[in-house]
């Protein structure tokens, strides 16, 4: 995720863009840059925070400009990889939010035609393609429209060219909104940087290209002129940042389908080295939610790929002798989790190949690992992990898929659609049961056991209700004593080899008077009759079932916490990343 903004009008563009980028920093903040257009193109770009280094960029002259704040995906955070990127002549500048999936082949093609690349980004191919079209016919809009069909993936782009008194924009599957001012126009990833200047917004659709001049905005849909409605935005700045959601957590829950899909797509076949693909055994070290992701991975890897996997809390790992061989996987959203970092270094010193899974390019864990895989979740603001967890699962599921000869490619590419359906479900009845409870049990079997653990963690961390996850089988060995009509049980009961025994476990729990909320699949005839509340998810393959159950648990925890008036985004006593051991 990155943030982009463009301005054309009567004011100096650079200071306005710098201020705007600060408001977009929640979308990424490892580097930033600005380009302004006059007779030529002037560019200032830096690795680092805008608040520290934005001063010089704000000095650029010109009444039209584009800016970018980056969350690295292709290429580490550096001055060179920061946007805007330029063509070979330096007269066309471009900023981009999204991922060009076919950039590698485009880059080879462009290099063979003599283009010189200055960065490691996927973005730079776009500007060189525009350069070629522009050389044929000096019309920036036509050039961008000619390039669009060649790009695969997601993008919102803004382009400037020397001597063209306009900005050309295009979007596909990345957000882009046009702000309509008085004799001035804005284009940005969202209204946050724009709302200070105008409340009138035009939201673009996929396939739209736009020309913003000082006089007007022309919008084209797949090359044909189109008019889009002007909407009046009532939101405050904070509202805009939350995208109209009441909390960041809910916004991030809703971003999960895209985060999963983007992460799945981002892992090209070359991403996994031989040490991973041929690993004879795998050890996973993680904390918190990441530990639960690791446990799901263990179940899937052992069952589907037949590779033995071991899982340890990162904080406990050092108390065991290190594995003598094999792969060690460290999972940390922030890449700074102290325990996980220490465990990775310990494993590496013992001669293991180390693989890091993180959301932050250039974070400490990437330096402690031999190989790093990045989640495509974008910055996560809410303390409770949601989309980063789902992005971790995307990576781990893709690893299982690759190791087991890619039987599940199609399943993984379709999974986000089932999650989108789940987001529309009404969980009101279940919330009313949970909000009254002092204790809640989460039970499941097989890979749904860690899903239960994660569901319980979400519930306790944001609603402050005591919640525990158990394997349904272990419940009888002690925790059964706690069951009563006051302790609701959330049971995950999916079709497959755990189904029959889950049904008997649920009956045993019912016999102790515990109210049971079951998550099962649509069309299940037996389960709805024996439980108090039945929540149906679509009947999908295992990978997708794990996601749908998880998202229901997140939503249940979120709505319960809201019903109890909790501070959802900043639960008491917790910090986003734990950088002490």
């Amino acid at each position, binding site marked *: 995720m990155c943030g982009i903004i463009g301005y054309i009008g*009567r004011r100096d563009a650079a200071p306005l863009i710098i201020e705007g980028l600060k408001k977009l920093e929640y979308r990424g903040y490892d580097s930033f840059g600005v380009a302004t257009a006059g007779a030529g193109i002037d560019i200032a770009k830096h690795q680092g925070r805008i608040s520290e280094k934005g001063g010089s960029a704000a000095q650029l002259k010109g009444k039209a400009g584009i800016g970018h704040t980056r969350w690295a995906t292709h290429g580490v955070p550096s001055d060179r990889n920061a946007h805007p990127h330029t063509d070979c002549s330096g007269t066309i500048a471009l900023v981009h939010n999204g991922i060009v999936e076919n950039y590698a082949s485009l880059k080879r093609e462009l290099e063979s035609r003599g283009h010189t690349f200055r960065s490691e980004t996927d973005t730079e191919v776009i500007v060189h393609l525009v350069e070629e079209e522009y050389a044929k016919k000096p019309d920036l809009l036509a050039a961008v429209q000619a390039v669009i069909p060649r790009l695969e993936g997601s993008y919102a782009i803004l382009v400037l060219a020397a001597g063209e008194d306009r900005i050309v924009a295009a979007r596909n599957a990345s957000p882009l909104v046009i702000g309509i*001012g*008085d*004799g001035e126009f804005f284009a940005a990833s969202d209204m946050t940087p724009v*709302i*200070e*200047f*105008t*409340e009138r917004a035009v939201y673009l659709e996929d396939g739209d290209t736009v020309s913003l001049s000082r006089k007007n905005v022309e919008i084209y849909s797949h090359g044909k002129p189109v008019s889009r409605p002007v909407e*009046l935005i009532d939101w405050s700045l904070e509202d805009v940042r939350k995208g109209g959601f009441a909390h960041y957590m809910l916004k991030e829950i809703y971003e999960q389908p895209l985060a999963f899909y983007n992460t799945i797509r981002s892992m090209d076949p070359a991403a996994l080295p031989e040490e991973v693909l041929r690993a004879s055994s795998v050890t996973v070290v993680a904390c918190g939610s990441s530990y639960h992701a690791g446990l799901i991975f263990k179940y899937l890897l052992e069952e589907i790929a037949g590779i033995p996997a071991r899982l340890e809390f990162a904080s406990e790992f050092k108390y065991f002798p290190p594995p003598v061989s094999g792969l060690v996987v460290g999972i940390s959203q922030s890449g700074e989790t102290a325990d996980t970092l220490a465990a990775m270094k310990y494993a590496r010193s013992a001669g293991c190949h180390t693989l890091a899974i993180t959301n932050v390019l250039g974070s400490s864990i990437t330096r402690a690992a031999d190989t790093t895989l990045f989640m495509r979740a974008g910055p996560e603001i809410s303390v409770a992990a949601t989309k980063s967890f789902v992005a971790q699962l995307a990576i781990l599921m893709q690893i299982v898929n690759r190791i087991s000869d890619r039987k599940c490619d199609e399943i993984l590419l379709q999974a986000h659609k089932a999650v989108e359906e789940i987001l529309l479900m009404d969980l009101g009845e279940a919330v009313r049961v949970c909000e009254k409870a002092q204790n809640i049990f989460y039970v499941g079997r097989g890979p749904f056991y860690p899903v239960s653990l994660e569901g319980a963690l979400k519930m306790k961390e944001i609603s402050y209700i005591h919640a525990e996850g158990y394997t349904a089988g272990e419940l009888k060995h002690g925790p059964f004593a706690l069951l009563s009509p006051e302790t609701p049980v959330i049971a995950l009961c999916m079709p497959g080899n755990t189904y029959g025994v889950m049904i008997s476990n649920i009956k045993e729990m019912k016999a102790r008077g515990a109210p049971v909320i079951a998550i099962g699949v649509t069309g299940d005839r037996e389960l709805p009759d024996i439980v108090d509340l039945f929540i149906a998810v679509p009947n999908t393959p295992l990978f997708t079932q794990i996601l749908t159950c998880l998202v229901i648990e997140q939503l249940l925890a979120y709505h319960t916490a809201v019903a109890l008036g909790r501070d959802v985004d900043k639960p008491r006593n917790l910090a986003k990343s734990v950088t002490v051991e």
Partner: protein
Amino acid sequence: MECVVLAAGEGKRMRPLTAKRPKVMLPLANRPMMEHLVLATRDAGISDFIFVVGYGEREIRAHFGDGSRFGIRITYAAQRHQQGTADAVRSVRDLVTGPFLLMNGDMILNHADIADFIQRPAPCMGISTTDHPGDYGVVLVSDDRVISLEEKSPHPKSNLINAGLYLLSLDIFDLVDRVKPSARGELELTDALAGLIAERKLGTYRLPYWMDVGYPWDMLDANAILMEKNPGSIAGTVEDGVTLKGPVQVGEGSILRSGTYIEGPCIIGNNCRIGPHAYIRGSTSIGDDCHIGYCTEIKNSIIMTGTKVPHFNYIGDSVIGTHCNFGAGTKGANLRHDHANVRVCGKDTRRKKFGAIIGDNVQFGINCSINVGAVIGSNAQFAPNSFIEGCIGDNASIR
């Protein structure tokens, strides 16, 4: 010459009437306050306007559009976060092309005075006199030049005040750029003028007529004065048995039913239902789509669009927002037994007679009693028989 109208602020002193609109769009004689000012300026010979808008800008844009309906040209400059008058002036840099007229959007002026004022050399400040100068910027004048300007002083040195009307040259843009935030954290235009004042370069013009509308109760005076000029006209239906005294204007689609008695000056908007047997006394203005029903008496009040005062009600010396509904028998007091000035939320209205300030969409049950000086927030709801006094917040539910 271009005229810049400052209309970006909410006008917090007008709350709760500003919930849905900026102060300058509040109605006086059934037109937005600012329209009277803009038309007077147009009649003084100016046709190019720049409106600095922010709070509630969509209301202003929707009403004025490009100005063609009024025979003028309007350019807008958005000042979405109001950081003071100097910041507002900064927002029109590059939009004005020469010496220009700058005015606050919330005052009432005569067109002849504006025509006279714009003949003066810039820079020049419009000044006026008042009996409560402590609420304004107090000026000291010597040889028609401002020699000192003091904001909202507790001990004003004169009764001459800054009227909020200026004639400025393009030099002002360099001056406003140098302004530092004031004690209240705003970029003040008057700070930009300090240099001109020190050099005795800021001229003055005594406005023969000037009225600013600071508080809701000031609206009643302004409403009355603006209606005096209105000769009255009838576009709607007047049934037999209706008595009209003095100038009365009735809009299209409105019907005055039998037994209704109206003492002008009075303006009734479009599509209103009045009567039967309603009694409306002067200087009352009633917006569009209102219902003033059987045995209801209204006196010297402003009633905005869509409000219903339908049966056995009394409203006097009050300002009432849009889409309110009065239950049968609900009445408002407008005079204290000790005949002292009415106070609103502790502020002296300097009026012996004043009723209530009622926001938008307020719902009264039957037989509510509204005491003098009550302020009722928008969307408040009252159970039958409620006694209402003091300041009631937005969205309150009183039972």
